[in-house]
């Protein structure tokens, strides 16, 4: 019997493909955000808010990941932005290969590409798809302990949005405890509290996003 040293990550091909996707996105100077949250946390509602605020300033594309159907795509297309659907059929997350399959459909240059991952706090965290970074959403009815139960996502996310702040009087959720639990996974996370329902709390987030979009544009220019 022969022993062969392999020393290769199991997800090596996904990682390589994610890198290729990232290079394509970078050539368009697009800021690409992978949005991950549990079902019903408010991914689509937050995307709607972002689109409404930014659509006159920058070109936006939504890549919509769902197991089946086009419910969210149709909802988002009504806002007058381009939407591309990925149906994963059985898979509980998007991976770099599924994302690569829709890239030929992207004919224009976009400043901002928002990728709505399949609703799930576990699996999407492990699969890079070519994003600049991950945005995690935690909604108040889910409980402030979720970062401890799903640590990897909160560890990897650059931005964490606490959504449904309008429900705080009705649910057992402490903002301080949630922030502490997020920080214990990721002390560098940018945390924002919002209500996608009322629109409250988005100003700081928009300001942050504007800076991010400018930074990405500048990076593209210096690269020439």
């Amino acid at each position: 019997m022969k022993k062969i040293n392999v020393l290769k990550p199991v997800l090596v091909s996904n990682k390589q493909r994610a890198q290729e996707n990232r290079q394509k996105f970078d050539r368009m100077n697009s800021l690409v955000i992978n949005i991950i949250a549990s079902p019903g946390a408010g991914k689509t509602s937050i995307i709607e808010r972002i689109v409404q605020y930014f659509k006159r300033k920058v070109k936006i594309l939504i890549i919509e990941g769902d197991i089946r159907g086009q419910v969210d795509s149709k909802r988002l297309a009504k806002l007058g932005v381009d939407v591309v659907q990925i149906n994963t059929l059985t898979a509980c997350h998007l991976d770099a290969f599924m994302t690569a399959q829709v890239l030929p459909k992207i004919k224009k240059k976009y400043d901002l590409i928002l990728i709505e991952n399949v609703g799930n706090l576990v699996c999407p965290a492990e699969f890079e798809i070519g994003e600049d970074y991950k945005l995690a959403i935690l909604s108040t009815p889910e409980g402030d302990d979720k970062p401890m139960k799903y640590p990897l996502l909160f560890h990897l996310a650059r931005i964490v949005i606490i959504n449904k702040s309008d429900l705080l009087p009705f649910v057992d959720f402490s903002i301080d405890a949630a922030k502490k639990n997020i920080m214990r996974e990721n002390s560098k996370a940018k945390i924002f509290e919002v209500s996608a329902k009322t629109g409250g709390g988005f100003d700081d987030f928009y300001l942050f996003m504007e800076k991010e979009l400018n930074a990405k544009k500048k990076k593209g220019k210096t690269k020439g």
Partner: protein
Amino acid sequence: MHEFGITKALVDLCNTEAEKNNLAKIYKIHLKIGKFTGFSPDSIRFYFEYLKTGTKCQDAEITFNEVPIRIKCASCGKENKIEEPILVCPDCGKMTIEVISGREFYVASIEGD
């Protein structure tokens, strides 16, 4: 549930490596799996039984070598092994933590003929 895709990637990777190294059959796969990953050995084993059929991995078994979570604190400089991924320095209590190990998920080696 995502272990299906993971295990498929694992079988593909092992078959490719066996091909490259002229192995007709793989008997052992040594997998390094960090404690700060989202993968379950039980699920991987379950899918592996199905996915290995008809491949060079048909008669293979997987050994899982767990890698502990090790962290280093940027404030006090101390290194610690932790059981749960709560990234607070056990020595100084600060959250200026760098994860040194625990995120590994790779094939260390394969054995076969």
